[in-house]
């Protein structure tokens, strides 16, 4: 059980999330792919913290999880407003700055 094994899993999960974030059009799907990347980043953080400072890593991870939830709380209303104004969640249609 080496730390590099966790790096491999986290890197692959990050790659999958990155593919989803680029290849999707719907804002909800992009957000889901971003959440996948967050999960991978959390694994990176905790795997690195295991050998340096486990206590600080744990505290930082708890803060990161709480702030992730508040970030979802900001991003989802943005999508709701976008749907109300534009009538669609397609991000390619949200390319104009007015309106």
């Amino acid at each position, binding site marked *: 059980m080496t730390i590099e094994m966790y790096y491999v899993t986290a890197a692959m999960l990050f*790659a999958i999330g990155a593919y989803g974030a680029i290849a999707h059009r719907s804002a909800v799907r992009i957000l889901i792919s971003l959440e996948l990347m967050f999960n991978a980043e959390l694994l990176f953080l905790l795997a690195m913290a295991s050998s340096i400072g486990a206590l600080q890593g744990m505290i930082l991870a708890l803060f990161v999880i709480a702030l992730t939830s508040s970030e979802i709380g900001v991003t989802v*209303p943005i999508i709701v407003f976008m749907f109300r104004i534009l009538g669609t969640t397609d991000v390619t249609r949200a390319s104009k700055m007015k309106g």
Partner: protein
Amino acid sequence: MSPSNSVLEEFAYLALSLIALGSGLVAVSTEQAVYAAVALGFTGTSVAGLIALLGYGYVAAFHLLVYVGATVTFMVFSVVMMRQEPRLMRSLATVSVLNAVLLGLVFYMIAVSTGIGGVLPSINIDLGRVAKEFIDDYWFPLLLVVASLATIMIEGIVVARGEKK
């Protein structure tokens, strides 16, 4: 006492990683948004299991609470907004796959180059010590996080009410 030898740990790691990566693949490639949200829930659960395998049990419980709550919210929104579901952008397919693979490699290289590696140390953190650290050293970030979460809650109420005009 459970046989906590390294074979069981490796098997658990393999199973949890496969579930995490498999449901991640389902989350990005399925056509329906609800299945993507449920797959995100499964990924969150297996990542919580991997975190617990690393030794951070309380963080795993916290992660499970937050991510399962977020998944349910996503599902409601993707079901409610189910008209006009745009498809994947086919023109970007190869570029995005290439980019994803390269990003994964870059992150792995960064992580390995920090030199932090080797055998996983066994971690046993007393929750009382964590609480003491929070109150002694990190009380200000804690206050900020509480304030930001309260703001998010008020903002959610305002956005939800804004429809009845």
